[in-house]
């Protein structure tokens, strides 16, 4: 049996065309302790396979910092999938 301390809670935010494809602005997900961004993205694709082809164009942030996919997540992290930006 997996104990509560071996589970981390993650919030995921979607924007722009990713948000349009998922149909939601955000999700909450429970993952095993030690999970990486790569693990998270695999889970997200299970739920939203329609964003598969777009993932190569996005960056991922954790708590406002752009990170690599081998970054290990912590309980309470806020992850955002960031399509190419166009402000200004």
């Amino acid at each position, binding site marked *: 049996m997996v104990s509560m301390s071996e589970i981390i809670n993650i919030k995921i935010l979607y924007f*722009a065309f990713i948000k349009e494809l998922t149909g*939601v*602005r*955000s999700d909450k997900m429970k*993952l095993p302790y030690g999970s990486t961004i790569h693990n998270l993205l695999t889970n997200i694709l299970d739920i939203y396979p329609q964003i598969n082809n777009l993932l190569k164009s996005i*960056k991922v942030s954790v708590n406002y910092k752009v990170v690599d996919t081998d970054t290990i997540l912590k309980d309470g992290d806020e992850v955002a999938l960031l399509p190419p*930006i166009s402000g*200004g």
Partner: protein
Amino acid sequence: MGYSKKFKLEDDPLNMDKNKRITFNKIDEESILKSFDNDVNAGKFGATVSFLGTVRSYSKNGKVKDMDYEAYLGMAEVKIKEIENIVKEKWDIKKIKIIHRLGKLSLGEKSIMILVSTSHSKDAFEACQFILERIKNEVPIWKKEIFLDGTSKWIDGNSIN
């Protein structure tokens, strides 16, 4: 691994009207310029450069009717503040104001205003251009063109740094 239930649209927890760097309201160019008046009149600046970004009707994708802006609000605010700090380190900045508008904007409406005051004009021009480039490459804001025929397209942007 477990999955939790999908959540629908959330209320934005931030009151963006109080946020001076990002707003859903029309950018009041006159008021912002006036806010620099006292210091200008007191001789604190030698140069002030102002940049305004506005919605234009023409695009390589078609004739634009409106532009819709959205942002990752918390991160955008933090990133704009970081840009301000970097600019203050690189140049002798006397006063600075950056404000970006979100939501649906019509033709001619202002999406962004940047105001930079320095002692010398070269610094003011360079700093203003630096700020705009950094915003385009580092701040999580997205815009969608809405065309006259009712279709729309997200702008092909820059991969965020």
